[in-house]
């Protein structure tokens, strides 16, 4: 059908890997903070954490600059930070503060930083796919080699907008990279119960170059993304990456409040814990002699300080004023 990605020769190298580790760790620790805040009842809304899936966001976004676009999901903290959004603005946003990325008007499901090309987390499953495809169209018309990435889940893959976008992206050769974060679940349903066949085959049917990879291996993600993004920048059209992964936390932090029974076995979770992308990457860097225990401790401390600072920043910030709401509906016009 379509040609599979031929493995890219270039690999990220230890310096880049270390930088990616830092970003992944930043995502993890930030979300741990938010998870704790959520359980402590300190957050107004729900949070969907991406713990365990950080390698995908970071491995892909490492290739992007601020002028490239990322469309995200309800589980968007990782994409936000990977795309260069600041921890302060993320934590402040989820804490509903005026200094948050969206001034406290969006919340966890809507974290956005247009100055970084992060066009937003989205509360509608599948919503970000259409937006990212539109950003790819914009990039194509602008003609400056920008690309757009759509992150979406395996559950989202059953939304009709995805094949609609497959079709248009091929017809128009859009600079679009479609990244399916296959974490095996759509809310509380195992993917196999809501997805027939292989998702990658659906992309292949439209003639989209497709790669199915280990999403917990940041090098694999980085290399696959390198090929796809290069293709997009050269005007050769869309690519599809299916990254197998797992979310180590619940669908949302509040789920224990309404679940009658667990939907995942402890065994399964343990298996995936053993494949946590962060320790895996640390191990790899250690093997490469690019990181010592001491180095890692320094990194951890740096990240911890950053998160602590951001939390302090959020706590010190004011909630948004009504003024802000009214001026955030229309440009130069009252609602």
């Amino acid at each position, binding site marked *: 059908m379509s040609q599979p990605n031929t493995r890219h020769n270039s690999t990220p190298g230890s310096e880049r890997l270390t930088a990616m580790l830092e970003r992944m760790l930043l995502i993890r620790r930030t979300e741990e903070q938010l998870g704790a805040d959520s359980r402590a009842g300190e957050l107004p809304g729900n949070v969907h954490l991406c713990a365990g899936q950080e390698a995908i966001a970071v491995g892909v976004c490492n290739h992007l600059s601020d002028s490239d676009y990322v469309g995200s999901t309800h589980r968007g903290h990782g994409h936000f930070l990977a795309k260069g959004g600041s921890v302060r603005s993320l934590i402040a946003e989820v804490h509903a503060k005026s200094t948050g990325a969206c001034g406290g008007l969006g*919340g966890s499901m809507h974290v956005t930083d247009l100055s970084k090309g992060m066009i937003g987390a989205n509360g509608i499953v599948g919503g970000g796919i259409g937006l990212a495809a539109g950003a790819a169209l914009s990039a194509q018309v602008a003609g400056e080699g920008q690309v757009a990435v759509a992150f979406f889940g395996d559950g989202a893959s059953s939304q009709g907008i995805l094949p609609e976008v497959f079709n248009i992206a091929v017809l128009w050769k859009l600079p679009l990279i479609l990244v399916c974060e296959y974490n095996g679940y759509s809310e509380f349903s195992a993917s196999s119960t809501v997805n027939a066949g292989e998702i990658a085959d659906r992309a292949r049917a439209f003639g989209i170059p497709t790669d199915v990879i280990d999403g917990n291996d940041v090098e694999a993600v980085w290399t696959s993304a390198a090929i796809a993004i290069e293709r997009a920048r050269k005007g050769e059209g869309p690519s599809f990456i299916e990254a197998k992964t797992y979310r180590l936390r619940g669908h949302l932090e509040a789920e224990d409040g*309404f679940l009658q029974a667990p939907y995942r076995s402890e065994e399964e979770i343990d298996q995936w814990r053993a494949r946590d992308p962060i320790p895996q990457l640390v191990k790899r860097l250690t093997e490469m002699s690019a990181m010592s225990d001491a180095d890692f401790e320094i990194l951890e401390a740096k990240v911890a300080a950053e998160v602590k600072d951001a939390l302090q920043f959020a706590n010190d910030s004011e909630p948004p004023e009504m003024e802000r709401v009214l001026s955030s509906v229309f440009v130069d016009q009252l609602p």
Partner: protein
Amino acid sequence: MAKMRLTQAINAAYFEEMERNERIVLFGEDVEVSMFGDTRGLHAKFGSNRIRNTPISESAMTGMAVGAAMAGTPAICHLMFSNFALTGFDGIANQAAKLRLMTGGQARLPVTFVAAIGAGTSTGAQHSDTPYPMFMNLGGINIAVPATPADAKGLMKSALRGFNPTIFLLPRVRGATSGEVSEDPDFLVPYGKASVMQEGSDITIVAIGSCVHHAIRAAKALAEDGISVELIDPRTLVPLDTDTIVASVRKTGRLVVVDEARDRCSAASHIAAVVGDEAFSSLKASIKRVTSPNIPMPYAPALERALLPDPDKIVAAARLTLAS
């Protein structure tokens, strides 16, 4: 009678009607787990043929529910949050609402779409809408917005026994409201019959869904000042029992309509328009609407609270009306 929460009352209605009519099916995303609790236990009882988790495919879900109904299988299509009804809107707006007319009356459409409405828990703009005004404008589709467990049960049971497409909306923040509910298996609440929750003579307050509870508190506050409120809950917005509302306003001469929907083309606007026309000569003051402003809902809780109807706003609107 049994005391239960609104979601439990809906759950009881599903159980009773699915036992009564073996053809009824229910499907939706994760209805087995049941995030809201209304579909809890159904899968264990009725099995995988009649209770089905679906993929996230709102367009197919709404279209299929209508097709199943046309083919004689009453279908409950659970859409979780009402915003997702907009994601799969074709099956509702272009099919369910129109097929009976388009087929010259051939089609019976025993299909019930279920979804939660309302803000108040900082779920953000895409999970907080109250879109019944949009549904009301469709024509051809019934709309239930129960405020009490009893009405929830009775309205759901009526929907499941009928042959008309229905959108059944569950006021989210009131899902935990408790109340007495009949256990009579034939307890039904009719569509198009408003509930006069309290009789009164000075002012009529019409409130919808969760706003009914705000209105009850407002009525109490007003009563302390000797103001007698007639409180009406339409319960169904299609059909809309304007007769009861108009008759009440003919008596009281004053009306406040409370509706969590955005103001523009809201249910409140429509009720105000109808009453303003039909009870014009009885009106002693202008009709006031207590609604949400014409904007998406922000996340920050203080802002969200400030934008939504509440007892104080109702009292203020009532006083304004009574002052003129």
